[in-house]
């Protein structure tokens, strides 16, 4: 089914392209959010990636690679944006009081908005590449081979980068206790 949609989209069928986008939009948004750390920016990145994908889908030769191809466009767009504006939204002016004082070592990371801000802030301590691998794995819920495909890196590299990134994120969140 996806192959047929890709073929149709490649020949200019906007409805088919819309269906392809619809399948990937939310998870791509979550992956991108990890990189840019701002829902507004992530929304813009997804839109830009969609426009870019439409413009270049005629060059997508392997119909089975649509999802990975689209995610890669989005992640590259996000990395580009993160590189241009690395810490523009480090802390929102709407951040809860006291957020800037620390990363909340005693917080329960499953609690609401405060902790969401903490996590997004903690991501800022990681490189954009690390944020990308985390976003694809935990935001888009991709298996590691799909993470590798979206980033265009070998599987082994994706695995090691993933472990390294999550290992860096934990202490950033003030939760690292050294246990294994």
């Amino acid at each position: 089914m996806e192959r047929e949609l890709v073929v149709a989209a490649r020949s200019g069928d906007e409805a088919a392209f819309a269906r392809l986008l619809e399948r990937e939009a939310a998870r791509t948004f979550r992956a991108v959010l990890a990189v840019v750390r701002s829902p507004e920016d992530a929304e813009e990145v997804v839109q830009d990636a969609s426009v870019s994908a439409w413009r270049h889908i005629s060059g997508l030769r392997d119909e089975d690679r649509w999802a990975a191809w689209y995610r890669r466009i989005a992640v590259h767009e996000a990395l580009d944006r993160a590189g241009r504006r690395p810490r523009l939204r480090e802390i929102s002016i709407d951040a809860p009081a006291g957020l800037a004082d620390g990363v909340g070592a005693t917080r329960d990371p499953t609690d609401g908005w405060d902790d969401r801000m903490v996590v997004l802030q903690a991501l800022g301590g990681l490189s954009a590449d690390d944020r990308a691998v985390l976003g694809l794995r935990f935001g888009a819920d991709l298996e590691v081979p799909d993470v590798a495909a979206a980033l265009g890196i070998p599987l082994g590299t994706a695995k090691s980068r993933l472990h390294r990134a999550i290992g860096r994120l934990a202490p950033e969140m003030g939760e690292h206790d050294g246990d294994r």
Partner: protein
Amino acid sequence: MMATDEPGLSAAEQKAGTALRMALRDPETEARVTLRARTWLAGPSARRGSRVRWILPAAAALVVVAVAGALLGLRYGSSGGALVPTDSPTPIPSLPGTPGHFDNGEFSFDYPMDWPVLAYRVPESCGVIYLLAAFGTGGWELGTNQPQANGGVLCGLDSVTVPSGGIVVRIYWRGGGPAPMCESPAPTANETFGSAEALKMVNGDVTTWEFRWPDGQFFWSDDPIFEVHTSDAAQLAKAEAMVASFRWGAQAPTSGGLCSPTPAS
């Protein structure tokens, strides 16, 4: 599936993964992103989404859906389309016979039915140019993008050939690019059709009309541009009549007053 199932992670790392997964959930924005995907249209609304999104309410996507059903596209058949009522008379004669009519909700225009359609809806030159249509009695050829040794791409431009007494019209817009800049003083129109303001430029046998957004400025990306290639006076007159029928529609793009003077507070 879940972060807590990742092998080789400490408890803290697994907990961080779980927190990350939850933190990246944003149902409201995800719903908006998905809606925008579902209502994808490759017309100007979608293309310029990245630039004017800060001024477009989410409801605009729903409006696009409503308009989509009325999207017409250029008609290739022999039957003519209805003339649109114009909101003011123009000094240029109407097209002869029953012209075709294009209306995508953002803008509309009439076109002669005796000009064969040469191309329709073609992203070209690496996507920098979006050709809505090329038509006329000459030829049109898509440019070829050529990979370069340094990894770059030489973006090909399309080309037109015009026989004696013939004509080729390209209707296109420049895609992407930086956010619009507000020039002061702004370039001014030298022709007006109804409420649509155009900048007409003549370069030999090539005449172009660029229409600025109703509240925009000339030379922005996405301005519809009519480019007419002809040395024949009769053909040029038909092209002028076509251009004169241009009207912005209900879904005309807006910059949200980007270049309007800020009212004193």
